[in-house]
């Protein structure tokens, strides 16, 4: 996946106003199957896996015993005893090792399925209209999946995404990916690169592993308590029970000029108190935006902070999630 095709801002706007297609085939997949599959995933994943419907999808994190985040993932239920979990490319091997290491106590088979799937994300207000012209079968609703032929290729169609726009993600046999890509880009979906993928997700405050999530932070600090169902007793739940965070991940926007970047110090009341984990110029808001960890005392929207951008203090304000909201 290139950083850009025609330009980050142009590709970003295409997804917000029309439709874009991302080649996210670098993402990994792990297939978990067998009579113990649900109980196994319930043990590993932070969310309540028993609540994934027959054709459902669910977001969760994978934690260490101490609550440190190993990855954030989407899991799709392919059948009663069969699940597909999509991993971040850089974490895939570690995730798979983690799955395999814990599988022993369960009647389950864990398969590294990264080679079985290419993945394309079709996103934007016109995404579903474009899909409708190429799909044989039902398109899934949001957070649902369906099996369908797209451009003549059997796909797992998932009503998920990473842009804040409506759309689908397609899990495709690798030898069919080019046909799907050509059909969709030939019918109004602009190719979109990694650069716009980052600006789109940051405008709507979706986490990026390696920036906003790491083993050194737990999901409560990261604002992902909502995907942690502690009563399922997943690995890490014990450490998170009753946990009172000292820091919180917050979205912020600059109130004057400048662009925050990952690693810039955040100042609260004039003193260094945290660090930017993601930062960019928002193509839609046309201001510098970012996320970063600050002491919980500074987490309230409206709190004035400063960001030290290579020696210059830039005034900023903690904001509500998401930073960008579609006009109704």
């Amino acid at each position, binding site marked *: 996946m290139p950083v850009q095709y025609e330009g980050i*801002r142009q590709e970003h706007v295409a997804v917000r106003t029309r439709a874009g297609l991302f080649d996210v085939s670098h993402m990994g997949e792990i297939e978990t199957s067998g009579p113990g599959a649900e109980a196994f995933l319930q043990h590993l994943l932070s969310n309540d896996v028993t609540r994934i419907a027959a054709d459902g999808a669910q977001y969760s994190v994978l934690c260490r015993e101490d609550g440190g985040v190993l990855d954030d993932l989407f899991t799709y239920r392919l059948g009663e005893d069969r699940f597909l979990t999509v991993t971040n490319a850089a974490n895939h091997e570690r995730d798979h090792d983690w799955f395999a290491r814990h599988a022993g106590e369960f009647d389950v088979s864990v398969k590294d399925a990264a080679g079985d799937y290419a993945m394309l994300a079709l996103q934007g207000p016109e995404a579903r209209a474009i899909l409708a012209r190429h799909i044989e079968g039902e398109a899934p609703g949001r957070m649902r999946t369906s099996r369908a032929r797209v451009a003549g290729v059997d796909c797992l169609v998932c009503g998920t995404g990473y842009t804040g726009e409506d759309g689908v993600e397609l899990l495709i046999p690798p030898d069919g990916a080019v046909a799907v890509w050509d059909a969709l880009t030939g019918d109004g979906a602009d190719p979109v690169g990694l650069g716009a993928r*980052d600006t789109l997700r940051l405008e709507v405050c979706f986490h990026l592993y390696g920036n906003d999530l790491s083993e050194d932070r737990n999901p409560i600090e990261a604002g992902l308590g909502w995907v942690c169902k502690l009563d399922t007793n997943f690995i890490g739940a014990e450490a998170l029970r009753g946990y009172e965070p000292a820091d919180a991940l917050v979205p912020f926007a600059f109130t004057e*000029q*400048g*662009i925050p*970047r990952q690693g810039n110090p955040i100042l609260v009341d004039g003193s260094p108190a945290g660090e930017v984990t993601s930062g960019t*110029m928002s193509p839609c808001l046309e201001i510098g935006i970012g996320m970063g960890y600050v002491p919980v005392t500074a987490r309230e929207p409206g709190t004035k902070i400063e960001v030290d951008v290579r020696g210059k203090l830039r005034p900023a304000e903690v904001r509500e999630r998401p930073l960008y909201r579609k006009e109704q």
Partner: protein
Amino acid sequence: MADESYPEGLLYHPEHDWAKVDGETATFGVTWYAQDQLGEVVFFDPPDVGSQVSAGAAYAEVESVKAVSDVFAPMSGEVTEVNEALKDTPEKINDDPYGEGWMVRVRLSDPSEADSLMDVNAYKESLGS
């Protein structure tokens, strides 16, 4: 974005900056090649008027959505004017790098530094074009 061009009559620095010298003063900016490498400029952070710039040292920053780059001074001197229009329209650096995309005007402290800069042919050769 503008078409690739390197005007005659400018002096070029290896960090892809140009200077247009007029007696004791000069105008600085970045070349077509520099803006092309950077991509769409979304922010220009100028130096203060009155500040000193040194040949070969960074004096300003330009940022695309994805990355920050330093802008290097081709010659030394004192900044007498900055292109205020770039504050609201930094994309002029892409659209017109030798015209409306100019960055600063400088009162030169050593006009003979011009001798160490490249003319258009030498600069084009350095780009391998």
